[in-house]
């Protein structure tokens, strides 16, 4: 799976990865949505350079919770908003070795780790001194890390990903030496996409609850089938239901 980038060299010589650069291999685990994943959590494997900032890794993590669109749209199905959760809730943090690295690049970003640090300081919980710093000020070379130890990435307030570093080594002649391609995705778990209940062909884009027209609750529809079933030719709502836009976890396949 690494084959697409092996031996790549950059077009711009300024982007060449230098000798002595460290290459870290990270496993980023998906949060458990489906119960079948409880024992063997699916994960993606990423290569990261030692000189890259933590924010570069944060930006490269693709999680379906970032794409959620909040809100009920049964009455105005055409007006699904332009903003996805990623734009609305930009806060995130990494937790490595007792320090929380918070994303503070934008004014909307909050310190999500404050709850945890306050909790640990309120009584003598035995967690020592937990610190909070800015994510954008640190590169991976600045961190001291344990290989195989689980660390945390949290975004969207409560979407948590375990991160495990599986390998650290020096960059090699045969590796991809184009800096712009890092963090480089090496391996990704393939998730089954949920198909529309009606046509069973297209990926579901809507989910309905308390739907008088649907056989099950919740029920998934693709865009076409959803409109055909729930709205008449003039666009009037038929029946009672609550409709939410649905983003399937398998969207990144």
């Amino acid at each position, binding site marked *: 799976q690494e084959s697409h980038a*092996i031996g790549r060299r950059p077009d711009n010589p300024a982007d060449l990865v230098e000798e002595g650069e460290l290459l870290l291999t990270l496993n980023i685990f998906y949060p458990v949505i489906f119960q079948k994943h409880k024992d063997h959590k699916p994960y993606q494997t990423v290569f990261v350079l030692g000189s890259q900032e933590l924010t570069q890794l944060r930006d490269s993590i693709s999680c379906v919770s970032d794409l959620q669109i909040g809100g009920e749209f049964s009455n105005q199905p055409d007006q699904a908003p332009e903003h996805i959760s990623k734009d609305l809730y930009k806060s995130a943090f990494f937790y490595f070795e007792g320090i929380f690295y918070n994303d503070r690049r934008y004014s909307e970003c909050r310190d999500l780790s404050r709850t945890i640090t306050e909790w640990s300081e309120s009584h003598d919980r035995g967690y020592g001194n937990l610190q909070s710093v800015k994510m954008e000020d640190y590169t991976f070379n600045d961190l001291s890390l344990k290989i195989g130890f689980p660390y945390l990435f949290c975004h969207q307030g409560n979407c948590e990903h375990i991160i495990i570093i599986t390998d*650290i080594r020096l960059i*090699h002649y*045969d590796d991809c030496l184009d800096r712009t391609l890092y963090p480089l995705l090496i391996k990704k778990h393939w998730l089954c996409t949920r198909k529309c209940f009606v046509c069973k062909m297209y990926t579901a884009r809507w989910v309905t609850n308390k739907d008088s027209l649907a056989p099950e609750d919740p029920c998934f529809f693709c865009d076409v089938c959803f409109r055909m079933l729930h709205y008449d030719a003039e666009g009037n709502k038929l029946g009672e239901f609550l409709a939410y836009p649905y983003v399937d976890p398998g969207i990144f396949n």
Partner: protein
Amino acid sequence: MSAVPGLQADCEELLGAFLEADTVRFERFAELWRERRFHTIFYGRIRALERNKLTKKTLELAQQYFLPPYAFQIRVGALYLLYGLYNTQLCQPKQKIRIALRDWPEIQRFQQDLIDSQHYDAAYIFRTLRLARAFHFTAMPKLLNYRTKKKTEENEFKEEFKEPSNRVNSLITNDLLEELMNIHDHYQKMKCVISADKSQPDKALSLIKDDFVVNLKDVALDYQEWQQNRMKLFLNAKETGETSKKKEEETLVESEGSERANALARIKYKSYSAVIEASKSRRHRQVRLESSESGSNCGKSPSKSEKNSRRPQPAGRRDSLE
């Protein structure tokens, strides 16, 4: 990553044959390699993904023999094995050999040893691997893989390959003996200086044996010889014990082992049977001679107890055959 079946056995067989050849020349290793057509070890997996995995595991296994605590000859054999495996692998681009940061000083010392002892073929091969960029410089030796294992597999390596750990020698090194000698001479000179007769120390000052450093060295050498003899005895006994089921050969092994056992038993008997009579003031606490069957087993070395335990086995085996 689960172990590849048979891989360790094959590698150990090749390294064992190299050990027996009692040489570190690459030509000999290459002959053994070609006899076994060892390059076919990679032919098992056809698909690219599996080929990569197999090659990684093979190199990882071979790499372990390249580091201490293995004997010098095994390490040279492992170097040749890595060279052969790296060059005959089918993956494109080639899978690399992972060496951890903490192992590099040891490997550099090893390379220096090779050059100093004029094993230029081995040194050249190592240099070739370095120039071919065959190594990954990693933080940890084993690449982690996340699969919840039901039980952890333990690597059992052959005892014969390991260099026998000589703790006496690592404690009483040549440097230490030299320093002891120097201190001893200095001490003698000091005694002479403060004595009436300048050429030799006063009789009143002779509190230690004059030649104790030499004795210490002799004792250490004796121990090393004894350990080597014991290893040889153990290997011989193991071979004869495995291949023969006849009682005659068993008794031969028994007689070899039992000679020493009898000698030891005799000495122990003498020391334990002679009871010193306590003085009259301690009449109530006379030493009593206790006899215990298992008493003589305490001091025996493990190889002898193993031989003893092997004696009942052939009887059992013969019973099952009948």
